[in-house]
């Protein structure tokens, strides 16, 4: 007669090896993830610590720049008026009438005669003049030379002997090199004057 064996356990029998394997794998995985997170934070912190001196220096530089800027503004308020006056005077003193006369001598050819001339010492001035020309080609040679300087012809009268013209043009840069006649072989020198502060902001 065959002997019957009944398993009366309420739960199935545990495979201890499989359990230990699973537990160990899970534990190692958790450990690996935690390690990765820790390494990431460690790296970030190291980078932040390395950047901290640069940030401090940046703050110091910005503070120093602001301090200097404030001092400059205070000096601008205190000395701005005197400086503006000095610069206006220097600009006027630097204006060269001789330079403009040289330019006109250069422009006026042999058949051209200047009748009258008006020069004013101011920035962006226009030279007004009246001239007469013996022939039309000579007159147009003058027009052509002055056309680059905002030439404005006010009037032109043709007579049997000559052409009479009133015109104006923007005076060229007084520093323009064109000394031609005896007195101005050496261009008038600028007075060595220093004030001209930048208006940078």
């Amino acid at each position, binding site marked *: 007669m065959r002997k019957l064996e009944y398993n009366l356990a309420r*739960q*199935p029998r*545990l495979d201890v090896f499989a*359990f230990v394997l*699973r*537990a160990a794998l*899970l*534990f190692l*995985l*958790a*450990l690996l*993830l*935690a390690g*990765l*997170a820790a390494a*990431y934070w460690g790296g*970030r912190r190291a980078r932040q610590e390395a950047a901290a001196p*640069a*940030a401090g220096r*940046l703050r110091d*530089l*910005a503070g120093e*720049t602001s301090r*200097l800027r404030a*001092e*400059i503004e205070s*000096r*601008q308020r205190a*000395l701005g*008026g*005197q400086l503006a*006056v*000095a610069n206006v*005077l220097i600009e*006027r*003193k630097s*204006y060269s*009438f*001789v330079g403009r*006369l040289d330019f006109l001598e250069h422009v006026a050819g042999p058949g051209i*005669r200047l*009748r*009258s*001339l*008006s*020069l*004013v*010492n101011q920035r962006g001035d226009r030279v007004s003049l009246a001239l007469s020309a013996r022939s039309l080609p000579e007159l147009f040679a003058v027009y052509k030379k002055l056309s680059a300087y905002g030439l404005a012809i006010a009037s032109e009268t043709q007579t049997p002997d000559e052409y009479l013209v009133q015109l104006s043009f923007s005076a060229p840069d007084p520093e323009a090199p064109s000394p031609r*006649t*005896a*007195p*101005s072989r050496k261009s*008038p*020198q600028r*007075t060595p*004057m*220093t*004030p001209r*502060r*930048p208006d940078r902001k």
Partner: protein
Amino acid sequence: MRPYRITLMSLLVLVAVAAAVLLLSLGWGASQDLRRQGRGDPQAALRRQEQELAQTAAEHKEWQRLPEDLRRFRERTIITLDGFARFRRDLNLCLDDNNLRAPNISFNFQQRQNGLQPVAMQFSLNGPYRSLKKFIYDMERKPQMAFIRSVDMSASGDAVNAHFSMEAYLGD
């Protein structure tokens, strides 16, 4: 069986928590990096700030020197009352040197502004063009703060009539 299952479940929860922590860290770190990139490279910002400081320091130095420059400018170019007498002698000498006569020179002392008193001068001359030009050249060369404001010239035969407006600045 139950204690074993609880152990495994606990380990699974631990893995999930570790994974979540890692993912959140990476996400937060990336967002911080993006924000920092928006503000620019710290080293580049440092270099920019250093350049700005150098420029501001140079400008500051110039402004520090300005009172001394202004003092020297006034000393060299602004005419004192004694200097004005010398200037008038020089003006007459210049006219003589160029064989020019100014029959009438008018001086108009104007109101003092910014510590300076402008003096307007007007006179007419008649002479050869070259003499007039040489006179202008001589006046422009003078270091004092006196300059020609306007010249009106008109031909008169072989000579030229010229009307001059000049300005000089007197100081203390």
